[in-house]
């Protein structure tokens, strides 16, 4: 197997993504005495290029999908597909992150489970946690949240559809208000507010 360098991967994927390609960044990070470097490629794409880019990546080396991360950036939501190629050969693995921004008005993304079946767990999680709509997902049920969890509430959102404060249970306060006042303390009124 001929192994491509990070920049070469960027080039290949850029070609595959065409005009949907937005930006790319290669980073390195070294740890240890010998200073061996780990290499990461971050590519930001438009939604429509996700599958072509992924298909191209699969041709390079069948990638291992770590997870799909997700960030609420206010107006948009960014999905990051963390993929790994060239594993199995010491120190040569490259992390390729494909990042796709979705406007909150249209949070839909095609599934990649037909290409990488193992993405299902992650896609299901994105649906329930961030309210992403994964198109053609083979199994769209909830994964982590209880069945009685309210519809339209997404824990990872930072806007009005996030967790409302009345859903948050402050476990730590339980029983504390009944405590006797500390020695030498005066009024206990303020404490009770806690």
């Amino acid at each position, binding site marked *: 197997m001929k192994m491509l360098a990070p920049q070469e991967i960027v080039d290949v994927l850029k070609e595959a993504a065409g005009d949907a390609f937005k930006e790319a960044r290669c980073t390195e990070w070294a740890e240890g005495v010998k200073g061996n470097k780990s290499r990461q490629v971050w590519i930001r794409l438009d939604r429509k290029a996700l599958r072509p880019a992924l298909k191209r990546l699969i041709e390079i080396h069948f990638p291992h999908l770590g997870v799909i991360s997700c960030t609420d950036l206010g107006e948009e939501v960014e999905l990051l597909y963390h993929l790994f190629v060239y594993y199995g050969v010491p120190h040569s693995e490259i992390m390729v992150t494909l990042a796709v921004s979705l406007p909150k008005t249209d949070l839909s993304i095609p599934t990649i489970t037909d290409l990488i079946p193992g993405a299902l767990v992650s896609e299901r999680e994105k649906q329930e946690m961030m309210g992403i709509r994964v198109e053609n997902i083979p199994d769209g049920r909830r994964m982590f949240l209880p069945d009685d969890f309210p519809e339209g509430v997404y824990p990872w959102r930072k806007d009005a559809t996030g967790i409302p404060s009345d859903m948050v249970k402050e476990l*730590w306060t339980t*029983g*504390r208000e*009944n*405590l006797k*006042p*500390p*020695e*030498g*303390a*005066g*009024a206990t009124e*303020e*404490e009770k507010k*806690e």
Partner: protein
Amino acid sequence: MSFPMIPELLGQLLKKPATNPFPAPQLPPTITGYLKAVGEGKATMNPPVPVPPNMRGKMVYNRGTCIGCSLCIKVCPARAIELVPQTKKVRIFVSQCINCGQCTEVCPKNCLNLSDEFLIADTDRYSDKLVLG
């Protein structure tokens, strides 16, 4: 057919058990009686497995030196510390503390420390022993 466990088991019959008999090898007739006897020195309690130095056990708080700077509260990952505004001292809930020791490191006055005491079960989670300060 091979059963490598059998010789191991039979061999163990002749050896000493690996159990540390804390607090007593088997249950004494009554716990209260036993504890009383231990207290009076009439019975000896087997100690737990010795803990290493620097084991992070129950918090101890030197209320006197505390200056109420709230640094400990800032780093505490478990909301185990609260400031009592009237006294400008803190109060630590042992039953909430996860023994991370972060507060002890951050305290400028060294008034927080983790001891090696860990047998702190109680019937009341806010008992005097478990609320410091």
